[in-house]
């Protein structure tokens, strides 16, 4: 099932390769930051939320989605260099290269954030 034969799937892979990793990090930041802000705040302290468990769940999800984005970017790049996708003006190859760079950077960023949050002590000011 090379992407060339099913254009709708090829488009989906291209979008996932470009936006998968960034949106995964954005979700990790918004949900993770929101969680620490809420749980360590005056209102949240009463609910004693298990921050570390929730943070590791978010971390795991974000990492898998981002790694998936990077993998699909690699597949797309390999497919387009093999010529399996018709790319008259070189736009798909261009986006595939971008997808590789984006995927790598956001996987690194998600790894940094996740390890940092889980290493530090909850709610220590």
């Amino acid at each position, binding site marked *: 099932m090379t992407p060339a034969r099913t254009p709708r799937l090829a488009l989906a892979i291209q979008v996932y390769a470009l936006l998968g990793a960034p949106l995964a990090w954005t979700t990790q930041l918004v949900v993770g930051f929101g969680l620490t802000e809420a749980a360590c705040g005056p209102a949240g302290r009463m609910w004693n939320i298990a921050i570390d468990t929730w943070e590791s769940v978010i971390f795991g999800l974000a990492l898998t989605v981002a790694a998936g984005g990077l993998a699909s970017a690699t597949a797309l790049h390999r497919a387009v260099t093999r010529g399996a996708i018709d790319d008259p003006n070189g736009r798909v190859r*261009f986006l595939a290269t971008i997808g590789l760079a984006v995927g790598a950077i956001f996987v690194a960023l998600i790894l940094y954030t996740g390890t*940092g949050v889980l290493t530090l002590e909850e709610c*220590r000011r």
Partner: protein
Amino acid sequence: MAVESPAPAAAARIDRLERIWAERPGLTGWLTTTDHKRIALLYLATSLAFFAAGGAEALAMRTQLAQPNERVIGPATYDQLMTMHGVTMIFFFVIPLSIGAFGNYLVPLMIGARDMAFPRMNALSYWLFLGSGLLVYTSLLLGMAPDAGWFDYVPLASRRFSPGLGIDFYALGLILNGVSSSAAAANFLVTIAKLRAPGMSLNRMPLFCYAILATSFSLIFALPPLTADLVFLELDRKLGFKFFDVAHGGDPLLWQHLFWIFGHPEVYIIVLPAFGIATSIIPTFTRRMMAAFPLVAVAELLVAFIGFGVWVHHMFATGLPATTMVFFAAASLIIVIPSGIQIFAWCMTMVTGRPEFKTPLLFIVGFIVFFVFGGLSGITLAAVPFDQQVTDTYYVVAHFHYVIWGAAVFPLLGGLYYWFPKVTGRMYYERVGQLTFWLVFAGTNLTFFPMHISGMLGMPRRVWTYPGGLGWNVENLLSTIGAFFLAGGLVVLLANLVVSAYRGAPAGPNPFGGGTLEWATSSPPPAYNFDVIPQVTSAYACWDDADRADDRRRLETGELVLEEGHETTASTPVDGHLDEILHMPSESPWPFVLGIVATLGTAFVLTDHYLIAAVAVALAAAVLTLWHAKEPAAA
């Protein structure tokens, strides 16, 4: 590739184009213009005027800080000057110059279009910008300028601690400025998406347009948090709302969070167009394409995107939990990677090309030196414990001047020289140009380098004076000397440009052999930019002589000359296939009128005349209905 005398059929077409796109002469022409080039020149003149004001404020502050315990200026005046210096340089100089002047002038030319997607909204952006600038500067003239710093922390900025109108001038002036910038950003997004020349798919778009695209995304998503924050502040100050009042459930940190969600993308908005200018100048003077083109393109978009996730690094000392801060420390560190990619791309393009170190490229080399040095001090500020030591000291002042002045304004100065022949049709004096580079380079180092030291020695920001005996005296004196030296260098630079504008040698359409499409037009370009909408097959269309010769042939046959009115082409956003012919609105008085109505309406809100302000809003709505009363000529 010069434009030789065209054959008769072509000459007739060019005459018809000139008649269609002719602008009204004189003042009314300027007040009603919608031509992106004339709007850009308005932006250029206005932002340079505000730059002079901001520079004067800086020199006054440096004079007061030359020696310890000096009494040249009291704290009241100093606090107003330091706030106005920050607000002027950011909101009224560097962004209007980079987006309003450079962006407006170059984006339509680089993508092979005849104007922006919304010409009249483009004019409105300028008049709203001018209105907001004049509104804020009225406060300085009345001696009640905002005095709580450019980030205006609450509760100092609340009514209780800043009872005057200064903070209201700040808040309402910046809301108006925000509307102007958002409109400009929307305009750029649609222009870049829809008005690219046929054949210009995403991988053939000039890198300057990627920088403006990234800047526009940042503006669209960064300005609303600032607008909301300023509305909250005005509601608190004028109507007694309780957003920031701790006693009633509010929180002063809410202001800081919302301000910096806008604040940090804002500083990337400042520096991104400068990256675009650098990636335009380097290929021309090294005579090769930018190395790793896709990586540089994505790097600019990544800087903008990750820029939205770093804002708490301005708040590391506010006692937030460590687990909250670490999200932003990680993002603040990783954002170095896109910048690193670009720095190495610029350097490798020069190493593997045949660089000719003329004035524009010199300014870009200076830019790289400052950007790397400022970027490295930026990384140190991302290290939480060290930032908790040096935040709000002169070390941070040194960092952001290296990155804003060194990394954003240097390419702007280089850009002024680089596109000077295109805008004026004349060459600048090269030797004087290189002299001004060395003057400004030395002045910048002499002014801002010592601030690193005084910051490390514990000198806080925004102090109108300081005691002797703490080791700060030498650094402050050097900074003051440097500031005046820098001002002198800039005067020489301005003189060089002004004199060359009248007495410079005539420059052909492409004096430096540039690769992007603006060099395919005459200097200065006609009102309609391109007599034939160019076909594009690479990112450096001007280096494809076959395509450009093809344009001359199509001028003969009249293909894509589009001479039935204000017309330009539209193409599909991703692949740039020709999609339709668009009819553009021509010049109109309504943008200028709406600009005045909006500014007056804001001024009435400022002085609590809410009823008259409501009338102004109704008037504005009426103007908007008349905006396209006569619809652009339908085919």
